[in-house]
């Protein structure tokens, strides 16, 4: 559905993404895991049209994408960026309305968001900047879904959230996927990501070094140890609980 072919991107002399190719199939959750600085965010920003790759091409349902962010949204791809990027000067509801900027069914979308996250409904008139981190992440996801995307790109949705809330977020991602949205999930929290992914790859220094089914990679301790850097020990400790 969303196919990336030989994509390379560099910030000046620093190459962030090197010749990356993969495909997100319709209806699946695909995870890209890798440590800090592996090029994950740059890769997502290239797909979303925020960065213009030097070489390579991105296809959505067979159609080549231009590196223009708003056109990418019109093609049914929606990025939920790292750190949420919510409009903290606007209210919760205004954030949702902007999320549905390209959609014709804004009021239905808002209702659906409040059904999904009743907490957002309670705070609809509140400035988004006053929400807690978990609520902001929920708002970011709800806002992303407002455009009725076919593919959802999620950049580190668990970043900076308490473990219980991370579980909630992962559940929401799974539910969204079951409702028919394909998901490309980029995570440092490899265990959580692999736990819900159908299919995954490991990114290291801008290149894909391993690909496989989510469960396969999750059971491969060497991958966790080798490719996820120092944090992998902590991850193991966390998984032992």
């Amino acid at each position, binding site marked *: 559905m969303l196919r990336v072919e030989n994509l390379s991107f560099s910030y000046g002399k620093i190459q962030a993404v090197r010749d990356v190719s993969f495909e997100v199939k319709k209806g699946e959750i695909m995870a890209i895991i890798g440590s800090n600085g592996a090029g994950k965010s740059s890769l997502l920003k290239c797909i*979303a*049209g*925020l960065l213009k790759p030097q070489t390579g091409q991105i296809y959505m349902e067979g159609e080549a994408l231009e590196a223009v*962010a*708003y056109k*990418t*949204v*019109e093609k049914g791809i*929606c*990025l939920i*960026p790292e750190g949420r*990027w*919510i*409009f*903290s*000067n*606007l209210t919760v509801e*205004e*954030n949702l*309305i*902007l*999320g549905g*900027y*390209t959609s014709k069914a804004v009021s239905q979308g808002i209702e659906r968001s409040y059904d999904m996250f009743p907490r957002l409904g309670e705070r609809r008139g509140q400035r988004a*900047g006053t929400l807690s981190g978990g609520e902001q992440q929920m708002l970011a996801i709800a*806002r992303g879904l407002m*455009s009725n995307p076919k593919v959802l790109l999620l950049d580190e949705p668990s970043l900076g959230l308490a473990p219980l809330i991370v579980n909630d977020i992962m559940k929401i991602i799974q539910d969204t996927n079951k409702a028919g949205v394909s998901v490309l999930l980029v995570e440092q929290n490899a265990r959580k990501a692999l736990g819900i992914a159908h299919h995954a790859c490991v990114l290291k220094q801008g290149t894909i070094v391993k690909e496989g089914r989510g469960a396969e990679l999750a059971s491969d301790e060497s991958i966790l140890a080798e490719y996820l850097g120092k944090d992998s020990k902590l991850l193991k400790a966390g998984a032992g609980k």
Partner: protein
Amino acid sequence: MFFQQVINGLSVGGIYALMAVGYSLIYSLLNFTNFAHSITVTIGAFATFYFLTELFENIYAGILFAIVVAGILAILIQILGYSVLLKKNAQRIYLLITGLGISTMCDNLVIISFTSRFRVYPVNFSTKAINVFGATFGTIDLIILAVSAVALILVQLFIKKSRAGLAIRGASFSLETASIMGINTQKLIMIVFLIAGALAGLAGALLGAKYTAYPALGTNMANKAFISSVVGGLGSITGAVIGALILGIGEVLISGYLSSAMRDIFSYTLLVIILFVKPSGLMGVDIGDRA
């Protein structure tokens, strides 16, 4: 007497506000001050003058003409001057320098094309004075006040109530985030320049009616508007209007009761004091909010 001065001050402040809102809109969206703003004011005055002398002797039609011409000019400035730099995500200092360059160049082009003569509109608002409760007001001040108020309210409604206005408020928080909502930010920038230019054209037309049209009109007056928007808080539209009214009324009262030589001293002193006491301006948006 005092009441008259206040009305006069409000009419001056209203014109400052028309220009100050343009500075604030562009600043809030793009984080730089558009120093080429002043030329759209000058052109507004000249467009009205030539419309009245060459085409049609109706001051209201002349003002409409000025709004259209200045709006188009502002868009041209954005396309020819800024858009290339914005696409490259250039540092804002380059945009400031470009703006200053455009302003200086256009001021001189205006002098070359129209000479530096002062021009009086062949037709103007009625100069009759109106008596209310013993105080006399110039009709022209009342009309300027009313026209400015209507224009400012329309812009405020557009920003607060319309879909595009919401997009502008979102984009002023982050252009990049707005773009991943599917908002065409290039188009949004055009809309903002169009509004800023149209308001500046209106200001220029009114200034030409209140005073005269001359090449340095825009630069002189836009300076005051810039001070207003800094005093009110750069990037805040309400702040720009409040700053402009404070400046307008203050200037008129100072020239009325002290001396007109003190007028500019007042404006610049106010600027310095604000920068010392509250650098973000009266209604300034706290950057910390953006995190």
